[in-house]
């Protein structure tokens, strides 16, 4: 996708520091394609929000450059960037009606009344709030307010829309619903979106690509499936999805597969995303749902036996906890049917494929 010559949005060696000792964003290089939905995902303080603020123009990079459609954004004030933005707390102007809120960016652009009216109607219809133009934000529910905020960020047809944890204030059900709604909206109008969140589900559901931030650096940037299935660092594996983390040492390497020894002496075959050397200390990452339990596990390259310590009922699935490889909380995700035969204290056989396990 990304045109090598003229990416839509470009971060070039961007750094940001608020004081001379701590660097909030460390040497950020990032290209975003036109029409892409990119999510910046990371814990608080990882630099993702600062990155967004630099993009919006509320913060200046300490060094480096941000380019939008080939134009340097350095020194351009926020109101001249033409970038739409949706805030976590909606930030609708409480003293204006919904219609007036939407008219605000159009008036700032000197658009005539008639065109304003059409645009506002289209935008409100788009978020299914056509009948609410005369209400004040205070009279709307949280979900409705968020839709108005979306409509307001889109009504002036910006090329780029930034969203700063826009669903953070909503309850879970509404959030799930809005995730899909935003995704569909994006698919429909094809605007480029840079979306900041600390919620991995949100990132997985909506994004074309996810950039995982930690300590001011992008740990990995890839499509959701890639991020989930092939995490490149221990942090990414841990931060996204459930993960079993086992310390290990590399014994042998063959291609991108290697053999490792665990603390309890067990041998494991795993993939390594980067070059490995014998003797190196690594962390094994196995997703709970990738672990097979029962006789089938005999045929797997990684196959072991252990005692069930605990069984936790979680509604849609059951979690079985075992001691293994030096940890006492290896977690396995099973359906009810598979777990039905198990009880605490049983010795069970379990295992996983080498490609479902990564040495990070």
């Amino acid at each position: 996708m990304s045109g090598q010559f003229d990416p839509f949005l470009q971060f070039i060696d961007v750094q940001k520091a608020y004081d001379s000792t701590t660097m909030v964003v460390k040497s950020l290089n990032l290209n975003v394609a036109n029409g892409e939905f990119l999510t910046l995902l990371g814990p608080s303080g990882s630099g993702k929000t600062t990155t967004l603020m630099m993009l919006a123009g509320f913060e200046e990079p300490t060094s480096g450059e941000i380019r939008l459609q080939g134009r340097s954004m350095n020194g351009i004030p926020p109101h001249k960037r033409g970038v739409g933005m949706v805030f976590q707390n909606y930030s609708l102007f409480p003293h204006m009606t919904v219609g007036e809120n939407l008219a605000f960016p159009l008036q700032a652009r000197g658009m005539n009344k008639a065109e304003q009216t059409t645009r506002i109607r289209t935008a409100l219809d788009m978020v299914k709030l056509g009948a609410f133009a005369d209400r004040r934000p205070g009279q709307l529910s949280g979900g409705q307010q968020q839709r108005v905020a979306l409509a307001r960020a889109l009504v002036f047809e910006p090329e780029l829309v930034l969203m700063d944890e826009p669903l953070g204030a909503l309850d879970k059900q509404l959030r799930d619903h809005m995730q899909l709604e935003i995704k569909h909206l994006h698919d429909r109008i094809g605007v480029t979106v840079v979306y900041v969140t600390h919620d991995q589900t949100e990132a997985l559901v909506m994004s074309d690509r996810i950039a995982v931030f930690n300590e001011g650096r992008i740990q990995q940037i890839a499509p959701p499936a890639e991020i989930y299935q092939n995490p490149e660092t221990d942090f990414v594996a841990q931060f996204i999805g459930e993960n079993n983390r086992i310390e290990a040492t590399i014994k042998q390497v063959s291609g991108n597969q290697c053999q490792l020894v665990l603390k309890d002496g067990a041998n494991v075959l795993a993939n390594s995303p980067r070059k490995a050397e014998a003797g190196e200390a690594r962390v094994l990452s196995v997703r709970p749902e990738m672990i097979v339990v029962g006789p089938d596990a005999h045929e797997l390259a990684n196959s072991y036996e252990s005692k069930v310590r605990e069984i936790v009922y979680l509604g849609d699935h059951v979690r079985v906890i075992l001691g293994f490889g030096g940890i006492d909380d290896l977690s396995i995700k099973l359906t009810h049917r598979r777990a039905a035969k198990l009880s605490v204290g049983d010795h069970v056989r379990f295992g996983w494929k080498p490609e479902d396990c990564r040495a990070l």
Partner: protein
Amino acid sequence: MSATSFPAEAEQVLQPAQLHRAVKKSGRKRRLVSLALFGPLLAFVLVFFIFPILSFMALAFHNDEVKTGFPLTSQAIQSWNGIGTPSEQVFEALAQDLRESSNPEAVTIAAARLNFDVIGFRSLIVSTASGLRQAADATSKPAQEESVPDGFSIFGNATAEDSSQAAAGLGTPKQQLISIDPRWEETRYWAALKRGTWAVTPLYILAALDLRTADDGSIEWASPDRQIYLTLIGRTFFVSAIVTLISIALGFPVARFISTQPPSRANLFMFLVLVPLWTSILVRTTAWVVLLQGEGLLNDIIVKLGLSATRLPLIHNRFGVYVAMVHICLPFMVLPLYSVMKSVPSSYTRAAASLGAAPLRVFFKVYLPLVFPGVAAGALLVFIMGLGFYVTPALVGGPRDQMLSYFIAAAISRDLNWGLAAALSIILVVIVIVTLFVLRRFSSTAFTR
């Protein structure tokens, strides 16, 4: 979609020094905008508020009246060691300053300044100046007087001649001045004159503390008839403290009561507290004058109810001052108390009660510590306000109820004594600032404890 598209290894990390510079640069613009916003007001306050007050306060140490009024004497007296009387040159210089002054107004001002140090100095200078003038007349006019053979004039001339004997050179300048006024033999006048030539003077600050500089340079108590200011400072402090205590005693139940009322009624009651706050102090004080005066309403009621046979003196005394000041200060106590009490959830006291604490215990161990910051804030506000009161004591108090502010105003408008007014101002402001710091520490530790 391409996967990772960043050259992770090719980072260009800023050197610490560069980083420091870049951070500073980006902060500078913001700071400039902030400065542009608050700068005008800051400049306004500094130029028209802080600077006038400080330059006025500096008058307490200002000491150039004597140097301007007696330029030659001021120079000559520097050589005097402070024992006995100065040398002939100093007397000579003084005589010359008095005789040939080009600026009689400066001499008058210097005389007033010296008189504030040693009472009687003004009359000494006036008598000496006129004595010298007569002597000068006597030596320059004999020709004229001879041409007018008039018995009366001869008689008049004879007395002038008596004093002009000295002036005509029958003695040294020292003898001449002492013969005009023997007080020139006393060390204390010369000592005061020399103190008048110091670069700065402690005179006013000492006077405002009932002290003075003795002739040997040590500090001693002022003469008993001039010891009024410590009493005044004490009174100012005392009246403020009493008003603060009464305000706490009355304000606490009111704030507590309003904080337990349902919102609509609480609003109404707070309105009753706010109305007096917004009403002009003069209007309120006028109301109290009407109520409290001898023929006033309160006395009417007292007499009618037979509580007293005669009309009571309720105004132009300390009682009137307390009543009117508490009336003015009380809203400032209720407001912070109310806002703190409103924020204390009743679940705390209920929790304490449910744990078995008796009501009094709940009040003292739970409620009071929680609302203490409000008490401290209100007390701070009222006490500081009280220290500066001027209008109310002036209108409803008697002569013995006036506070520091009144004497500052009087020092200027009645005595034209700027130095003393400045010294009293310094003392008042220092008390205010010390109170502010002490009580603020007190109220902030209440939170952390």
